């Protein structure tokens, strides 16, 4: 255990997005010769389970902790403990409303979803009905992406009507069934926004099964299925964050902080719109993952 140890507590574990973050963290770990562990609860509702993971991480005396808060307020007492023990915290994915984290590596989810809304408006001719299939009703990412999309439509696209918002827990099958019901209920639907990878795949699947290919689909994040769908035209495009970058930057900042070096307070890893036209561009290809 001579290598510095950095614990990453994320919001999730099994989904491709988090696996991509983990891949970025692992890449940094290899590059900077540190040990990294990566853990996250099963669902983004399990705020207390995340606390237990944080507690176990603290017991291991890490050089630094990377933390993606499910509920930033709820985590503060725990983070304070870490601060008292002299362990620097780097927030990732979404911020922590506090000055405890020495740095935050994040995507502005609301702005990203706003971009998706603008793209949707552009693709459906700035008028008509759209619906959202979101992964979670209460988690930060779910709320930010939903509200980011909805607010932008309300502000800038008055002729677009949001007819339904349903939540599918990021489960591909459940999202499929939800989308099929939405499509049935709204035969004149113009577009659907799937707010994370699982939701987007569910939407695509429903479109495939119902043959309603006239409906414009916009996704979020990447992964092999979405990339393929964009290639074959069944998905108009998607927003991608830079999860590998998030993981990489988090570990890098954490290591620097643990050595007492100064780190930038905000590391914006950015988000991008990608579609058939720019998918192969190097700066886009770099942030996509399978």
């Amino acid at each position, binding site marked *: 255990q001579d290598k510095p140890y950095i614990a990453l507590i994320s919001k999730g574990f099994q989904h491709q997005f988090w696996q991509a973050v983990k891949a970025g963290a692992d890449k940094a770990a290899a590059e900077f010769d540190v040990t990294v562990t990566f853990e996250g609860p099963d669902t983004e509702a399990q705020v207390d389970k995340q606390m237990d993971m944080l507690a176990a991480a603290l017991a291991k005396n890490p050089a630094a902790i990377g933390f993606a808060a499910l509920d930033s307020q709820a985590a503060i007492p725990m983070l304070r403990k870490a601060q008292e023990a002299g362990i620097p915290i780097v927030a990732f994915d979404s911020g922590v409303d506090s000055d405890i984290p020495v740095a935050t590596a994040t995507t502005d989810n609301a702005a990203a979803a706003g971009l998706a809304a603008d793209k949707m408006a552009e693709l459906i001719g700035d008028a008509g009905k759209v619906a959202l299939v979101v992964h979670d009703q209460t988690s930060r990412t779910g709320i930010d992406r939903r509200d980011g999309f909805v607010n932008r439509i309300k502000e800038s696209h008055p002729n677009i009507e949001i007819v339904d918002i349903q939540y599918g827990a990021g489960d591909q099958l459940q999202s499929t069934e*939800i989308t099929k019901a939405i499509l049935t*209920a709204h035969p004149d639907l113009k577009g659907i926004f799937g707010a994370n990878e699982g939701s987007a795949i569910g939407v695509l699947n429903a479109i495939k099964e119902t043959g309603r290919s006239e409906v414009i689909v916009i996704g979020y994040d990447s992964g092999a299925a979405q990339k393929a769908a964009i290639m074959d035209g069944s998905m108009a495009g998607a927003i991608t964050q830079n999860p590998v970058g998030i993981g990489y930057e988090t570990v890098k900042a954490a290591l620097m902080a643990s050595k007492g070096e100064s780190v930038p307070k905000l590391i914006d890893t950015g988000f991008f719109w990608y579609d058939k036209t720019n998918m192969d561009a190097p700066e886009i290809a770099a942030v996509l993952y399978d």
Partner: protein
Amino acid sequence: MTTAPALSAKAKPKANGAQQKLWAFASLIVLLLFFSVASPNFMQTSNILAILQATSVNGVLAIAATLVIITGGIDLSVGTLMTFTAVIAGVVLTYAGLPFAVGVVAAVAAGAGCGLISGTLVAKMKVPPFIATLGMMLILKGLSLVISGTKPIYFNDTPGFDQISTGSFVGAIIPAVPLPNGVLILFLLALAIGYVLNRTVLGRYCFALGSNEEAVRLSGVNADGWKMAIYALAGGICGIAGLIIASRLNSAQPALGLGYELDAIAAVVIGGTSLAGGRGSVLGTIIGALIMSVLLNGLRIMSVAQEWQTVVTGSIIIIAVYADMMRRRRLS
């Protein structure tokens, strides 16, 4: 041995069972009527097919759960076992590139094997079914992630794989009825397992074990062996569910499956199968699964807010079973 004719009426135990199903069926009809009136979009062929398709995975899992529950056990592992078999199919077809049939067989065999392990734990090692299958649920969840490398396995290299679930064999013959194959599989499986339950030795022991396991043992029957066989059969059925979902998503999603067990068990119980074991039917289970799908689909079509959907679903489940209880009490 006596003279007094206590049998003034001929007992009709079969009729009772049929009536029970009829009643669950009545709940289903009420729901269908309600939603037809509530939304013009509900009663379309395409939506009915969508409901059926939405039932296929839960229905198949519920059939597996029915078998185990009739023996007086419970199976919490159906959901993650389904995922595990899907991953196995993925490994065999996509990673190893083996032929289609091998993948299908591997998935079902993996399911049966895991079922056999659960069955052995329950029958031979006397671990309570709840614990044995809870343990298996966690183990299989973990193994699915391990084997798949925590990422989905796509079946793009296996042409026709998506036809298992979404193609329509029936539609190819009768174009007016494009029944998806997943639904066809569900119905055929229901028929087959219904037959096994009512007409074969395995089915008989299934009911007998749930009714009084000790009596079965005292009768000199190899109770443990049959129980293991039943769990293995249930596991194999989960393998079929794994193929259906993998085909539908054209991928094995290793993180999926947790929570599916409660839906399956709920369908079984709504369908009138007793968790105490000894009584139950596949037809009831199918109706139970349909009630759940219709309810969810209908509420979604009506654009009921999701939090209220949950409240309504919970209430309807209680009401449906309560109505069933009432009727049964009135009968006896």
